[in-house]
C-alpha cells in the first residue's frame, strides 16, 4: 500500500488508504505520548517540568532508540530479531575487556578501534542471522532466539565479571556533555544550569534521521515495505525478496552494534547483566510506535515516540513510589498487551473492509 502511494502518487484513493494504516497508528502513538507527559506534568509536579528531565530520558535511552530503529526495519519486512539485547551486552563486554587491555598496554588500540569492534560484532550477527533467515528460510524467531543465547553465552565466556573502564580517552568521551542552548533550569542555590545531552543521544538522533530518510526516500527503503506487505507480489514486481530480507537483518545487526556501543558509552562498563531485556523493550517500542508485527506497516518517527512513551511510563511508575523492580516490567508487559490488542483490532477491521 505504502509502495503504491509512491508509485501512483496521483491516485488519491490509494493515498488515503495508506494514511489510515501507517499514520493512524503514528497519530495514536504521538497522542499517547503527549497525554502521558501532560498527565505526568500535571499530577506529579516534581521534575517533569524541568527540561533536563526530558533530556535525561533521552540520555538513558539513546541505545534503546537505536536498537528499536533496527528492530523496526526488520519488523517492517515481516521478521523479528530478539537477539539485539544480548548482542548489546556482548558488545559492551568485549569493548570493555578490549579497552582495559589497551589501558594496561597489553594491546595497541584506541577508542576508534573499539568502535570498529562493536560494529563488527553487530554486523557479524546481522549477516549470519540474515543469511539463515533469508536464504535458508528459517523462522526468524528461532534463529534470533539461538542468536540471543549464543550472545549470552559468549558474553560470559569473554568475562563473567563486571568490568569498569578506566581508559582515559574513553572516559573523557563518556563524560562529554552537549549543552542545549536556551534550555535549562535554576537550581536551589539560584545558579542557572543549562540542559545537556550525552554524545550518544546525538548519534542516536542522527541514526533516527538517517533511517527515516532511508525508509522514506530510497528505493531499498520502499522495497522493505513492499516485501513486508506482501512477499509474493513484491517478488512479482521484480524485487529481490531474499536480498531485501537479508539486508534488513544486516542493518538491524549494525544498529545492534551501534546501540551496544551507545550503551557502553552510557554505562562506561561491561557486565553480563547489561541490557537485560532490552530486546523486549525494543520490540515493545516498535509495536507501540505503530509497527505492525505482520509487516509492511511502520515508521521510524513512530518508533522514536514509542521509545519516549515507554521510558516516560517507566519514569512515572518510579516517581509514583512503586520503585520495586517488578512494577516496571509488569507495566511494560501490560502496555505491550494493550497495544498488541489495538493492532489486532485494526488488522481485523482492515481485513473486513477488503
Amino acid at each position, binding site marked *: 500500500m505504502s509502495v503504491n502511494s509512491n508509485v501512483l502518487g496521483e491516485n488519491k484513493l490509494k493515498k488515503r488508504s495508506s494514511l489510515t494504516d501507517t499514520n493512524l497508528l503514528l497519530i495514536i502513538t504521538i497522542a499517547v505520548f503527549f497525554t502521558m507527559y501532560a498527565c505526568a506534568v500535571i499530577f506529579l509536579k516534581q521534575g517533569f517540568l524541568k527540561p533536563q528531565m526530558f533530556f535525561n530520558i533521552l540520555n538513558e535511552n539513546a541505545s534503546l532508540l537505536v536498537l528499536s530503529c533496527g528492530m523496526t526495519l526488520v519488523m517492517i519486512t515481516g521478521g*523479528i530479531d530478539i537477539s539485539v539485547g544480548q548482542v548489546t551486552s556482548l558488545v559492551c563486554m568485549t569493548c570493555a575487556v578490549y579497552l582495559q587491555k589497551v589501558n594496561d598496554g597489553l594491546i595497541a588500540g584506541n577508542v576508534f578501534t573499539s568502535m570498529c569492534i562493536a560494529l563488527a560484532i553487530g554486523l557479524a550477527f546481522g549477516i549470519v542471522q540474515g543469511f*539463515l533467515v533469508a*536464504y*535458508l*528460510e*528459517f*523462522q526468524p*524467531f*528461532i*534463529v534470533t*532466539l*539461538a*542468536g*540471543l*543465547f*549464543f550472545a*549470552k*553465552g*559468549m558474553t*560470559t*565466556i569473554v568475562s*563473567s565479571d563486571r568490568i569498569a573502564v578506566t581508559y582515559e580517552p574513553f572516559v573523557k568521551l563518556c563524560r562529554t556533555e552537549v549543552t542545549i542552548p536556551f534550555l535549562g533550569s535554576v537550581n536551589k542555590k539560584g545558579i542557572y544550569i543549562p540542559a545537556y545531552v550525552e554524545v550518544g543521544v546525538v548519534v542516536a538522533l542522527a541514526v533516527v534521521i538517517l533511517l527515516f530518510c532511508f525508509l522514506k526516500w530510497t528505493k531499498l527503503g520502499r522495497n522493505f515495505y513492499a516485501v513486508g506487505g506482501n512477499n509474493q507480489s513484491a517478488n512479482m514486481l521484480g524485487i529481490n525478496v531474499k536480498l531485501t530480507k537479508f539486508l534488513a537483518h544486516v542493518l538491524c545487526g549494525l544498529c545492534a552494534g551501534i546501540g551496544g556501543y551507545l550503551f557502553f558509552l552510557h554505562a562506561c562498563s561491561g557486565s*553480563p547483566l547489561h541490557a537485560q*531485556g532490552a530486546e*523486549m523493550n525494543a*520490540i515493545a517500542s516498535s509495536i507501540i510506535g505503530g509497527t505492525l*508485527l505482520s509487516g509492511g506497516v511502520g515508521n521510524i518517527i513512530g518508533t522514536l515516540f514509542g521509545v519516549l512513551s515507554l521510558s516516560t511510563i517507566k519514569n512515572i511508575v518510579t516517581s509514583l513510589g512503586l520503585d*520495586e*523492580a*517488578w*512494577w516496571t*516490567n*509488569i507495566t*511494560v*508487559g*501490560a502496555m*505491550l*498487551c494493550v497495544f*498488541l*490488542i489495538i493492532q*489486532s*483490532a485494526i*488488522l*481485523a477491521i482492515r481485513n473486513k473492509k477488503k
Partner: protein
Amino acid sequence: MTSSKISARGFFGKLVRNQLFIPLVALLILVAINLFADPTFFKISLEPSSTGNLILSGNLISIIDNASELAILAIGMTLVTSASGGQDISVGATIAIAGSMVLRFVKMYSPDISGGKFAAVIIFSFLVCVVVSALFGAFNGSLVAFFKIQPMVATLILFTAGRSIAAWINNNDNISINDARFGYFGNFIPGIPIPTPVFITVICLIIIALVLKFTNLRLYAQSVGINASSSRLNGINPKLIKLLTFIILGVCVAVCGFIKVSRTSSITYSVIANNIEMDAILAVALGGNNLGGGKFNLTASVIGAYVIQFLTTTLFKFKVSSSEISAYKAVVVILLIFISAPVVRKWIADVRNKNLASRKSKIGKEAN
C-alpha cells in the same frame, strides 16, 4: 545385485526418514563421546544419601532425573507447536509464577502439621497452582487464538512480566520450606531408590498417551496446524483447539513448577528454570517436529528432551560453566535447523538425484 542394493537403500532411507532417527542418532553420538572420554560415565551405584536412605546415584540417574521437567514441558510445547505453528517462550517465567504460588500456600500452613493434613495442603496448593498456570496459559492462548497475534510475540508479554509477577506474589521474599516432606516430590521418598520426578514424568506421559489414544486431540491439533480455515470448514473450532493446547501447556508448566520448587524447597525468582524455554523448543525441534505447525510426534519430542539433558550433563562434565552452556546449545540449534531446513533438504535431494541419474546412465551404457 542391483535390486538388493536398491532394497538396502530403501531400508536405509526408511530409517533416515523415521522421525525418531535424528534424536536417537544424537543420543548415540553423545553416548559414544562420553564413553570415549570417561568409561565410568555410566556407572550406577546404590549409595546411602545424606539422610541415610539408600538411593541410586550416577550420571545416568541424574540425567533422567533432571530431564523430568523438560520432558513434561516438551509434551505441552509439542501440542502448542503443532496447533499454533509457534512456540511459547514464556514457560520459564510461568514456571516461576507456578512455583511462587505453591510456596505461598505451603508456607501458610506448613509448620508441624500431621501427615494427613500436610497431604491435603500439598494437594490444595498444587491444584491452585495448576489453575493459576492454566489461566496464564489461557491468557497466552486467547491472545493467539482470538487476537491472532503470533505465539512468540504474544508470549513475549509474560516472558518479560512473568518473573516480576512471581516476585510480586510473594512480595519478593526469599521463602524456604523447612519441612523435609515438601522435598519428597523433587528428590527422593524415603525407601524408594528412584527419584520421584521420574515417577511424575511417567504418570504425565501415561496420561497424555491415554488422552491422545481416546480423544481426537491429535487429529484436531494437527489439522488446525496444517490448515486452520479448512479444518474450520470441517467442523473443528480452530480457536478452541489453539486455546486448549495452551491450557494443556499451562498444566504441564504447573507440574514443572511444582517439581522445581520441591527440589530446593525454595525459590529464586530471577534464576528458577532459567533458559528452559530454549531447551523445550530445542527438544521439539530435535524430535524432528515441524516448528511451523502440523504433524507431530510426541515420543520423538520426549526423547529429544532427554537428549538435551544428556548434552547439558556432558557439557558440565567437560567443565563448561552453566552460563556458558547457552552458547554451545545455540550452535546445536542452528545446526539442527540447518539440517532440517527445507531448502537444505531439497539441495541434498537434488545432489543425490543427480548422482543417481549419472550412475544409472553409466550402468545403462555398460549394459549396452
